[in-house]
């Protein structure tokens, strides 16, 4: 046997070791797949994370600016003694409030290499996180309650910066301005045999806060169920049609308006 084949045979274990190490390294570098439907995480003893909405419910000691204090007081007056809130009127929660699962509904994550789409059951509220180089140009971003979210991977953590928000408040009246930015981190782990997603967010808003505000960490566990379609605005539309149908049956002019729908709704309260 010649020396050359023997040398090649000697190389085989070395090459195999390199290949295996490479495969392991690639596997370890692969970002986690968040895809799935999740619900609020419950610890083994059955305890939840407590009620949280937006900034985590009414939190004393938020570092409000003078304008922030004025805004909180004003919202308290606007909401009135019955504590009106946007969800009653089918308004989206926006980011970060939707991420705190107000009302304890499930939330769905759909992951592609360049986009993470998140759908909260209420209002079918959807946000999109664009990952990597494919991004909307800043001047073409329409401000919204979800804002614009750009993400990148730091190891196995998806790091997201959300900008282009509109001035709004969470369910309990904590404000955030159109100057706010939200730094978010998404990670995945196994806990008690379940896939658990951890969400962290910090809001920096020079208009309403003197210092960054970190939300209580939220955990979601994989949910063995389905997202239920959640129509909300269409109920109001249906009620308008019902009013006009009643007019039609009564031989009256078919001219009911949305203001009439609200009169009916107010009469129910």
């Amino acid at each position, binding site marked *: 046997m010649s020396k050359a084949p023997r040398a090649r045979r000697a190389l085989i274990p070395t090459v195999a070791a390199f290949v295996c190490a490479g495969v392991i390294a690639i596997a370890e570098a692969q970002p986690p797949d968040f895809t799935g439907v999740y619900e609020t995480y419950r610890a083994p003893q059955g305890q939840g994370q407590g009620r949280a909405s937006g900034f985590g419910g009414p939190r004393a000691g938020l570092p409000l600016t003078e304008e922030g204090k004025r805004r909180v007081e004003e919202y308290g007056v606007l909401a009135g003694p*019955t504590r009106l809130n946007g*969800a*009653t009127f*089918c308004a989206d929660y926006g980011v970060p409030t939707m991420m705190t699962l107000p009302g304890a509904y499930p939330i769905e994550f759909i992951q592609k290499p360049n986009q993470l789409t998140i759908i909260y059951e209420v209002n079918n509220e959807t946000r999109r996180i664009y990952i990597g180089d494919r991004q909307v140009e800043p001047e073409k971003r329409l401000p919204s309650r979800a804002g614009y979210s750009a993400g990148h991977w730091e190891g196995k953590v998806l790091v997201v910066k959300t900008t282009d928000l509109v001035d709004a408040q969470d369910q309990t009246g904590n404000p955030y301005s159109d100057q706010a930015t939200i730094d978010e981190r998404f990670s995945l782990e196994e806990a008690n045999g379940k896939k658990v997603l951890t969400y962290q967010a910090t809001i920096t808003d020079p208009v309403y806060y003197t210092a960054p505000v970190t939300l209580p960490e939220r955990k979601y566990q994989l949910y063995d169920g389905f997202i*239920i379609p959640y129509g909300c605005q269409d109920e109001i539309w249906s009620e308008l049609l019902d009013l006009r149908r009643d007019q039609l049956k009564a031989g009256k002019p078919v001219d009911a308006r949305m203001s009439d729908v609200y009169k009916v709704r107010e009469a*129910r309260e």
Partner: protein
Amino acid sequence: MRTHMKTIVVAACGFALALFTAAAMAHHSAAQFDFGQRVTIEGVVKEFNVTNPHTWAVVSITDAKRGTRDAQYEGHSASHFYRAGYTRDMVKVGDKIAILIAPRRDGEDGGFIQAFTVNGKTVGFGGLSPETGQRTSAASQ
């Protein structure tokens, strides 16, 4: 129809009740309801709309003090109804129904639906029974 109205004061019902009260608070201008009390009303369904963001029902109720009248009740969203065990067309106009409610703070008719029994089937949010106002192990989320 003779209708019974009885007040059942319920002590803290644990995590499930807290969760579903929080759910109510998340969607509703719920300040007008007293979630510290539970009242069971019985009557005949005139309307039952399982919708979003919240359900509403009109029930004809009767008592000796105020006679027969229609009363309006609010409830959780359609999503919560279906997860609690509600099925399509479970409640029809004309059905006799017993509803466990968190009553209005102002003492007027109406309240927030916490559980109900109709045609032998019970749906309880947070596992509450409309008959006893207590949590039952059989009820599910």
